[in-house]
């Protein structure tokens, strides 16, 4: 009896959870813009997903809003402004380069300059040191004599 139950359970599948949204678009151009928006806008609930990837209720609502606004003739900038007015700069995966977000945009360049500068200083310092490995002047002279005599030796036929 138990075995039969187990066997039957194998054929019993859980109801599929995924909901497939179907939106109708008036034109292919609107669909293309929609697809860009759902990738560029960040879900406020599950923070490392964009609207397209997220199953959160609010993400579904925002997708619906994007669809609605597109069909009401909003421009791209107006839709971005609409989202920012409600959820802040946070919803943009590509925040505008102004105000506080300027730090975000400039930080990589500043860090790169700092890194290159640091490497340059280290390289220059270590090469200068290797030029002057022997600093004692007497020792230097002695070394030069040894090198000269060695050269003379080698030049003899």
């Amino acid at each position, binding site marked *: 009896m138990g075995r039969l139950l187990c066997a039957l359970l194998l054929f019993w599948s859980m109801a599929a959870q995924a909901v497939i949204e179907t939106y109708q678009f008036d034109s292919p151009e609107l669909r293309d813009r929609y697809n860009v928006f759902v990738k560029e806008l960040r879900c*406020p*609930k599950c*923070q490392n997903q964009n609207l397209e990837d997220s199953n*959160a*209720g*609010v993400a579904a*609502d*925002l997708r619906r*809003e994007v669809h609605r606004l597109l069909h009401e003739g909003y421009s791209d900038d107006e839709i971005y402004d609409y989202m*920012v*007015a*409600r*959820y*802040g700069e*946070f919803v943009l995966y590509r925040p505008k380069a102004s105000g506080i977000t300027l730090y975000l945009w400039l930080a990589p360049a500043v860090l790169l300059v700092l890194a290159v500068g640091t490497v340059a200083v280290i390289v220059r310092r270590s090469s200068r040191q290797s030029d002057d490995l022997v600093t004692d002047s007497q020792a230097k002279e002695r070394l030069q004599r040894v090198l000269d005599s060695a050269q003379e030796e080698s030049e003899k036929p």
Partner: protein
Amino acid sequence: MGRLKLFLPLLVFAVLAGFFIKGLGLDPRALPSALLEKPLPEFTLPNLDAPGQTLDNEAVLGAPTLVNVWATWCPSCAVEHNFLNYLREREGVTIIGVNYKDNVDKARVWLSEKGNPYRYNVVDLDGRFGIDLGITGAPETYLVDAEGVVQMRYQGPLDRHVWEQKFKPRYLELLMGGE
């Protein structure tokens, strides 16, 4: 000077550790509201308690008010509900409810069973007003002043601690200022 340089790694570590310790106590999901210092978005929505009638921004004017977004499908809202009852009964706080993406009949049953801490309830069936508020889920609570300007926002269930620490000082300030 050369000796001091040896402490540089320790200094860097201390700064990093400082940031990390601060980061431990921060909730990355607690976003600043884009609505702060701005008027509550315009709304005209059905009144949950009086079918056929609507409510608009007039409902939140005149006194500092809590606007609480709730739904019967939201477990944290059930946790929060008793505290809202307490706020209404013991502290006399005016609370306006936004019944968010909910079943209206279930919502009415919920209020008659658990008590109704709300002066009014508006019905946001499709979540459009929720988007205007910039909410990410339920429950969420806004403190709105007598002129209808948003002063504070909290995501998650309101409890005694949050009320005492975050809301109450500002609420009392608004109450005093308004009189």
